[in-house]
């Protein structure tokens, strides 16, 4: 299992080389988005309107951070559970999204879309919100401010520590439960 330092936006060459279990230190701009924001992104696409950020090579972090205390760019910012975004992810991946960041299992549809479009799914450590916030050096709301913690934020990350959970070749890191008696 390899360790890579990658910069956003990601290219197909970046994601193609990744395998489940690899460690990635991600740098550059990523976008936050979770349940309510995804619903609104779909509404914009349905109306043929442009999205608040360019999806080409983009990385979406499934996170709703806690409020930033004075003197900090952001509050605690660990991942939320990803399956709730499975209904939306294939469409965004088809439009150029290269990476999603969260925790927990993805659907077969998402895995299929990732293989087809050379996208990857990264896991960040759930419940390590204070620790992960150290790697976020800047954050600003760029859309849906009314959603509060669910607003879309443009975040700058430095060496954001991720694990490749699902790669673009059908590989998966999660342990299969041992059901033998």
């Amino acid at each position, binding site marked *: 299992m390899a360790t890579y330092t990658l910069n956003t936006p990601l290219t197909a060459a970046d994601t193609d080389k990744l395998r489940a279990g690899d460690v990635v230190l991600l740098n550059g701009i990523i976008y936050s988005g979770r*349940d*309510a924001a995804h*619903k609104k992104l779909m509404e914009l696409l349905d109306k043929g309107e442009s999205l608040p950020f360019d999806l080409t090579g983009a990385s979406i972090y499934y*996170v*709703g*951070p*806690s*409020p*930033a*205390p004075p003197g*900090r760019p952001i*509050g*605690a*910012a*660990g991942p*939320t*559970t990803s*399956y709730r975004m499975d209904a939306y992810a294939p469409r965004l991946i088809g439009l150029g999204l290269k990476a999603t960041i969260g*925790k*927990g*299992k993805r659907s077969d549809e998402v895995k299929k879309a990732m293989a087809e479009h050379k996208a990857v799914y990264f*896991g960040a*450590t*759930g*419940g*390590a*919100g*204070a*620790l992960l*916030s*150290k790697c976020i050096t800047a954050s600003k709301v760029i859309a849906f401010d009314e*959603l*509060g*913690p*669910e607003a879309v934020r443009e975040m700058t990350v430095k060496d954001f520590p991720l*694990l490749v959970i699902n790669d673009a070749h059908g590989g998966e*890191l*999660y*342990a299969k*439960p*041992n*059901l033998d008696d």
Partner: protein
Amino acid sequence: MREINGADISAAVARMCMSANTKLPDDVRRKFEEGLAGETTDAGREIFRQLLENADLAFETKLPLCQDCGLAIFYVEMGEDVCVPGGINEAITEGMVTGYKDGFLRKSSCDPLTRKNTGDNTPAIIHIDFVPGDGLKISYMAKGGGSENMSRVTMLSPSQGWEGIKKFVVQRVVEAGPNPCPPIILGIGIGGTFETAPKNAKRALLRKLDDTHPDPKVAEMEAELLAAVNKLGIGPMGLGGSYTCLGVKIAVAPCHIASLPLAVNVQCHSARHEEVEF
């Protein structure tokens, strides 16, 4: 009648919300340290290392341990001889709103249909039990959505018995997999009714991880379930290992002769709770 000032309750609740979200309970911390030494996989040990670092950082900086500061759950034991002018619900709610605001905690409550955030984490979820005497004990739990979503209540048939209970609990953990941020803690309500089983299950999560159930038979059931779940090998964050679950806490209550209610409340590793007594 003992009168307790609502403002004192609010102040204590506000402090408790801020403290619980930034300080990992000692019993949970000890389990993380045990996991760091005893987990069988490198990936699992690395998760425990990160979680301990996260706990230190949260305590130092007062950033929340987890961005999901949860819905605010309160279990209250209120003496029958206690009076709170202005109301106990109001006092707790006011303290919770202040704590979540002043502590820069995330407000995670929304309308179920429009999904509009209520803005102040209201309503506080308050369960009050009246007990003899003039004491007042308020337990607070920050319950995140990720683990709550993996929880279930079911009405088993009495014929399914303990084997049926075990099967349902293990299956629940299998299906939840990495989603609820393992290593998890399981609060299990056996018996009661459709509404009390889950309430009992969640309250059981307030117990210390290293305690022993006073009923030896229930203690044995807890140990049996813990071993069954940890045999699954899901491990910390689902990356594989022997620490899938840190503790199983069972609450048993009488039920209807036709029923065997069962509730499984899944708690993530960030098991944040505190209590205050007046």
